[in-house]
Structure formats: C-alpha cells, structure tokens
C-alpha cells in the first residue's frame, strides 16, 4: 500500500506536526510500518533543512511543512484541525 492510496481510503491523514497520522482505528501492520517509515524519512529531510538554515529549529520546519501539506491536501481527505481532531478537508 502506498501513501496516496492510504490517504484516499481515509486510513491516514496530515497532522499539525508535519507528519502522517493514522486515522483508522484498526490499521494493518503494513499501514503502521509505512506510516513510521514515511514519517522517519520526512523527519530526516526536515532535519536536513533545519541544519542548513541558521536559527531554524526542527519544530519550526515541521510546523511550516504541516501548513503546506494541509493546504495541499485534496478535499475529502483527512487533516488535523487546529484542535487536533481529524476532519475531512472541505
């Protein structure tokens, strides 16, 4: 299973932290492993950007990435709202 189909099936969604969160209550081991791996690879990339940008912390990069990712999410797919709940993007 890949990220796009997982998102399309509403199994996962974009969180405020810039990482993927599991929406479904009973994720399969494959989904869980995929989410862990994608988040780890995202973190490595965010880390790289933070390291080469003076004064940018990892969290700052993550937060900005989250804004972009949530903005880019097509409507109907899950994103975290300001209160951190899963909502379908209008």
């Amino acid at each position: 299973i890949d990220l796009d189909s997982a998102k399309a099936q509403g199994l996962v969604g974009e969180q405020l932290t810039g990482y993927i969160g599991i929406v479904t209550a009973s994720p399969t081991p494959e989904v869980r492993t995929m989410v862990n791996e994608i988040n780890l690879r995202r973190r490595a990339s965010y880390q790289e950007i933070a390291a080469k940008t003076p004064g940018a912390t990892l969290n700052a990069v993550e937060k900005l990435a989250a804004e972009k990712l949530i903005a880019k999410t097509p409507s109907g797919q899950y994103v975290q709202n300001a209160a951190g709940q899963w909502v379908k993007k209008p």
Partner: protein
Amino acid sequence: CNPTVKIEAPDKPIEINLNVKIEQEVRVKVDRDLDDLLESNPDLF
C-alpha cells in the same frame, strides 16, 4: 572629618527580572527548501 558610612547588610538585593524571547523569523529561508522537498518526493508527501 570624613563621614563613614556603614552599609548594613542590605535587606533586599536589587532584583532584575528579564524575559527574553528569541523569535526566529525563518519562514522565508525555509519556505523554498520545503517546496522543493515536497515536490521532489511525491511518495513521501
């Protein structure tokens, strides 16, 4: 005569309270990098 002034142990040190917030306006610098990142890793984002 020179007056001697005895300073008793001060009951209260001069207190200075300072709150310093280090705001880092990094939005601009990181923005472009993030766009490139998102674009070049469709499987990740």
